[in-house]
Structures are given as C-alpha cells and as structure tokens.
C-alpha cells in the first residue's frame, strides 16, 4: 500500500539566484531551503510554465532526488537522516540545493531559440563528499558539482568581512586567516560544459558503468564523451541519411548497459531497439541485436507507427532485461530474445479507440517514461489524468494510482483508481471521456533500493512511500 509521504509543490515564483560568482556557482543557504518547504504558495497561486518539471531522477544511493524544469532550473532534494528525536521524519525529502543549470540561448546562425528546458538529469555515483550530476537541455550537457561548505576563511588582510577591499593605508598589522565554522551552505558549480556536438535535440544522456564516459543522444546521432574532456566527443551512432528527404526514422532514447561498459541500446520512432557493442567497430551503425515485435495486422491503422514509437528505454538493474515504453504499452524484453518481448503491459488500452482525437490534440506524441523498482519486480509508468500505473511482474497484478492535490494529505494512503471502459460506470470509476489529457505524468523515478517513488505532475512533485506496516 502506497502512502503519501510528502507533496512538494514547486514554488510558483522563480527562485532568484544571485549574480553568479566568478566560478559560476549558485548558493543556497540551508536555512532558506527550509523556508521554501513550508511556504509553497508564497507570492501567487498560479504556476508558471517555467516550473513544469521535465525530469526526475534519484541518485544511485537514493539519498538525493533531482528535478529539472522547463525554466532550466534544477532542484535537488535530500532525504532526511533518521534521528531518534523525530523518527517520523525519516524518509522525508527536503530541498537541498537549487540552481539555474541552463539559460535560454539564441542560435544566431539559424535564428532559432534554444530552449533552456532540462531534458534529462543523470547522477554519477558518489565518489567523494561532493555529488555530481549531468544535466542537459536540447544542445548542451553540463556536469554540476554539488558540495557542502560549512566553513569559510575569515580574517583576510586586504578584504574586510563584507568582502570590501580595505584601504591599504589603514592596514597596520598582518594576520593569518583562519577557517571558521559557518552555517551549512550547499553550492552548485558547473564543472564541465559539453557543447556544440549536437545538431539536433538531445533526448537522452546515460553514464557508462566505467564512470569515465557517457553518451548524449539526439534525434539522429549518439555521441560518446569522456567526462574530463569537453572539446571532443566521438560519434558512435549516426542514422542521418545522405538525403534528408529519405528520413523516416529517428532515435528516441539511448542508454548504456548497467554492467557492460561496451554495450548500449537505442530506440527508434519505428518501435525498434538496437543493441550495439562498441568493441565491434568505432561507428556502431550496425547493431548486434535488433528488437522489434512484428505488427499485429488486426490492429493496423494509420496511427500504428506513431503509437509504436518508443518514448523511453530502461535496462533493468540486473542488466538482463530491457523495458520499452510506447504510447499504449510497456514491454519487457529479454536481451537474449529479439523476436518479441517477454511481457507486454497495457497502460491505457482504452485510448486505442481515441487515437484520432489524440492525434489531433497532439497527445499521441507525448513521451512517457518508465522505471524499474530496485529489484526489477515492479515497473511503473505514467498516464493521463495524473494517473500512473504499476505492474508487478511476478504476480501479474497492476494498479492505477493518482497523483493529485485532493489526496495529498500527508500520510494518506493512496486509493487505487480505475478507468471505466464498459457501459456501466461504478462509483469512483472515471470514464474515458472525463479523463483530463492536460494532466499527464510523463516523468517519474523509483528509489534504487526502497519503495519510494517520485512522480512529477506538471509543476508538482509527489513523493510516495510504501507504508511499512
């Protein structure tokens, strides 16, 4: 049973980050972050479009949760440590750091804006006291270092405490600066900027298990980077045809295998997944494995291709399976079997009869993500009306839940929802026609070990935790 742990509503007003210092870092006082938690609707009750969450990701330990939004901002939440004095607060996520990752840019050559929306965030495993994450917009990937500082040097000779330069004539004696304890400060610094490598829009980034390289993927190409080198990247997949008129397929997502550092998979708009081995040749245009399910002729329509377009792929934690999300289903593939998935789950098959309307209002192009739980036994994905679905791979049971303000009382148990497809509508069921297609859950994340999920609904972030009975 999922209980609501905490609801975070992203502040409607933009968090004003002070002018960036020379290193380009933005600071958040720990005390200020506490204020954010408690006064959600400070200035105005409406949310701007810039606050719409565009990506959610736990770090490998689950201690941190990062969200990126359309305004180019990253908000990092940290899990409360267990304390004896307040045991009920364990597991709550509070704002840890907020920083402006990407700013809007203008491509003068093409006379086009480059959106600052954060498309993806991927964490690096923690190797020292600082945390590192990669965040990307359409064109540029950045490596951010998030570190704590609880001391600062005081007693400079040439500057006074406020930082103002002292008049040298007033200095009569020398002193040695000493480190003083201060309030905890969390700083975010851009350590690397990987730019100018993508002609098309970046849709995925994936850190390699070797922790030295990562890939960034746009519609037609996959580039391999070394985390240390920003002025060079290797193109390892290129599906751009010589003549753009012949273009019929684009890359929609790519991911490295969780254990095999030479293996990566990428999905296409035609519903296929290709597994590539980088050892085979430098340019991985030829795949090692090709996963595609033959089309069912009985359900063929003009929309067949669009709904087969894969919006997200995720390797299982074990590395044995691959999950793909297309418009109506989630499929689990065994990497050893290319002919068809081992499991197919219907997310919202009642939409099959509404494809034309969904095509008209563009909802058919919505890109839903999918996630595994830590043990690979449950998979989760989003739907419309702020519904999200979970499928237990072992028991074959599934549940539909809703992320909404109505049931957002802390510690409230989530009630399963149901969409009525037949004639008679039971109480509490929602009819297909009353679904709100503007409320879609595209992004969600699952804690790597525990049953804690983060679900993004527009500008709201919901964190749910399995009730421990």
């Amino acid at each position, binding site marked *: 049973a999922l209980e609501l742990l905490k609801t975070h509503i992203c502040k409607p007003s933009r968090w004003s980050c002070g002018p960036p210092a020379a290193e380009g870092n933005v600071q958040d006082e720990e005390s200020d972050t506490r204020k954010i938690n408690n006064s959600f609707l400070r200035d105005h009750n409406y949310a701007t479009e810039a606050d719409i969450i565009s990506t959610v990701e736990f770090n490998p330990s689950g201690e941190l949760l990062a969200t990126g939004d359309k305004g180019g901002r990253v908000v990092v939440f940290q899990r409360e440590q267990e304390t004896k004095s307040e045991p009920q607060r364990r597991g709550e996520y509070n704002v840890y750091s907020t920083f402006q990752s990407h700013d809007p840019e203008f491509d003068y*050559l*093409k*006379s*086009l*804006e*480059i*959106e600052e929306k954060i498309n993806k965030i991927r964490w690096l495993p923690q190797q020292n006291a600082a945390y590192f994450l990669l965040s990307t917009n*359409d064109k540029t990937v950045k490596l951010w270092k998030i570190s704590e500082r609880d001391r600062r040097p005081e007693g400079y000779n040439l500057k006074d405490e406020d930082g103002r330069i002292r008049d040298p004539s007033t200095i009569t004696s020398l002193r040695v600066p000493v480190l003083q304890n201060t309030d905890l400060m969390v700083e975010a610094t851009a350590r690397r900027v990987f730019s100018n490598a993508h002609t*098309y*829009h970046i*849709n995925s980034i994936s850190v390699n298990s070797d922790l030295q390289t990562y890939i960034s993927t746009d*519609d*037609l190409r996959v580039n391999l980077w070394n985390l240390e080198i920003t002025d060079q990247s290797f193109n390892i997949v290129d599906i751009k045809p010589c003549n*753009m*008129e*012949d*273009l*019929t*397929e*684009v890359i*929609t997502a790519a991911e490295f295998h969780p254990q095999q550092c030479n293996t990566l998979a990428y999905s296409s*708009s035609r519903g296929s997944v290709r597994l590539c081995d980088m050892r085979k040749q430098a340019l991985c245009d030829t795949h090692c494995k090709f996963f595609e399910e033959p089309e069912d002729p009985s359900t063929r329509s*003009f*929309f067949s*291709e*669009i709904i087969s*377009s894969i919006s997200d792929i995720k390797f299982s934690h074990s590395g044995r399976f691959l999950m793909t999300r297309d418009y109506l289903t989630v499929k689990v593939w065994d990497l050893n079997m290319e002919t068809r998935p081992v499991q197919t789950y219907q997310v919202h098959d009642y939409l099959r*009869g*509404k494809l*034309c*309307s969904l*095509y*008209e209002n*563009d909802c058919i*192009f919505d890109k839903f993500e999918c996630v595994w739980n830590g043990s690979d036994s449950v998979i989760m994905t989003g739907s419309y009306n702020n519904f999200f679905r979970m499928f237990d791979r072992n028991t074959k049971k599934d549940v539909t839940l809703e992320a909404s303000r109505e049931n957002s009382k802390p510690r409230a148990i989530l009630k399963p929802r149901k969409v009525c497809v037949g004639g008679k509508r039971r109480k509490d069921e929602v009819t297909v026609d009353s679904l709100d297609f503007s409320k879609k859950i595209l992004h969600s994340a699952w804690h790597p070990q525990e049953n804690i999920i983060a679900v993004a609904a527009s500008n709201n972030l919901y964190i749910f935790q399995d009730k421990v009975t």
Partner: protein
Amino acid sequence: MFPKGTKRKFSDSGDEPAAGGEDVNQPSSVAVRMLSSYSLQRQSLLDMSLIKLQLCHMLVEPNLCRSVLIANTVRQIQEEMTQDGTWQIMTQALSAANAAAQCSADRLVATEVLCRQTEATQGEQVLKPFPAVGSEGCPAEEEVVVEEEGEGGVTMSTVSPQAPTSYLPGTFGMDPCWEEENGEDEEEDEDSEECGSGSEEGDSDRLVEDSRTAEQVFGTFEIKNPAPSPDPALEELFSDVDASYYDLDTVLTGMQSAPKMGPYDLLESLSSHGPSPLSSSTSCRSDLNELDHIMEIIVGS
C-alpha cells in the same frame, strides 16, 4: 451541387435512402457509403497531418521526431490513396489548377515538408509554399477537401495558415480552361476561402450532420468520391447551387463568416460563359473541392 432530393449521409447510419440519380454507375450505395466514410476519415487525417507539418514554423526548432512521424503518416495515406486511384484525381485537379506552374504528380508530399523542415533550420523564417505534388514552382498548398455528401453539402476544408506567395485569386475566374473543367469549383473555393482560416479549431465547430462518429472531432468534410458518374447538365447543377450555398450559410454562421460576395460573382461570370459538359456532378464536386483547397490556401492566413 447535387440535384435536389439526392441525399447521402456521410456516415453510414442508414437513416436515409441511398442517393438517387447520380449513383447510377456506382457500386451498391452501402458499399459506397462505407467507402466514403473511410475516405472521409482518411482525407481528414491527411488534412490534419499537413496542417500539423506546416504549423511547425516557430521560433524554436521544430521537434524532428514529431515531424517525421507525421510525415510518415502522410506518406502512408498518400500511398494508399495512390493505390485507390484517389491520388491521381486529386493531383490532376491540382495540376489543372496550377496550369501555369509545373507540377509533377509523382513526388510525394511529405518529403517536401521534411526538406523544408530542415531548410527552416537554416534560418529561413518564411516557409516556402507547400507544393501539392512537388515542384518548387508550384505555389498551391497541398490541401485536399473532402466532400461531404449530406444535407446541405458543406464546404469545409482544413487550411494552411500560410498563404502561397504567387497565386493570385483574381486569376481564378479568368482562366477559361479552368472554368471548363472545374466550373463549380470556384464557387466552392470561395466558400472555403471565407471559412478557410478555420483550420483545426474551426474543424470541430462545423456541424452539419447530427450523427457523427466520435473520431470526427474535426467536423464534417466533403467526401471526395473517386468514381466518376454520368454528367448532369450544367444548368441543373447551377440551379442547385443557390440552395446549397444557402445551406452553407446556415452552417457557416457561428464560425468565421465572411461576406460571401465571391461565389455569386463567380456564379454570374460562370453562367455568362455558357454551360459546358462536366464529367459528373461528383467529379464536379471533387473538382470544386480542389478549388476549395486552392482558394483556402490563397486566403489561408
């Protein structure tokens, strides 16, 4: 547009008896109705897709994945229509419309759009006119009007919001060859010209039929009937035009309504040219639809 008393529902509800005289050479009316319903839906889908592709010109680079998917859908429809033979008729009509321009009927539409997408990224803010069937010189936008065979014969078609650069509406009524072939088309086009800017929003407002399937959220269209029928006299057609336009009026109220001076002017000019045999009322309608398209394109924005 079609003789009085001839009614054919656009959805195969079976409420009304099948159409009369114009169906003489048709296959069974039920089959035709089903075919029409499917054609209608297919045509609507094509229209919608083309609009979507053309609406991609914004300040931010268009989403390539979306464009590719829509373009593939358009290709799919075109291929099917080519197999049907529908495509040929449409392209022929459009070719006639663009007599001055060189239009090759073979190139698929979607590729042009895709190319234009990528060209747009070169900094061109103004999209080139979307050629109906291909060549650069063809100014008319690719808009197919689906003819609705129901009460009142609504002329509605989706419209490109972008006006072609070189096509002059004024020349429309003047082209003798055009008139001979597509006498009725101009009136219809004028109608669609006025309500042309409806595009996707307007689509859903159009109400002619009570019975509409859930999928036809984009409203009613005129069905293009691919099969030719025997030709009624031109006077007969003309005699019906007034009524149909009257119906059109009632339909158009509540939507973008512009004064309909055009059709009646053209009507007069047409009748002054004397009647010329038309292949069929239905193909006449289809030609009219083509003209609708053209006119919409012209005044589309």
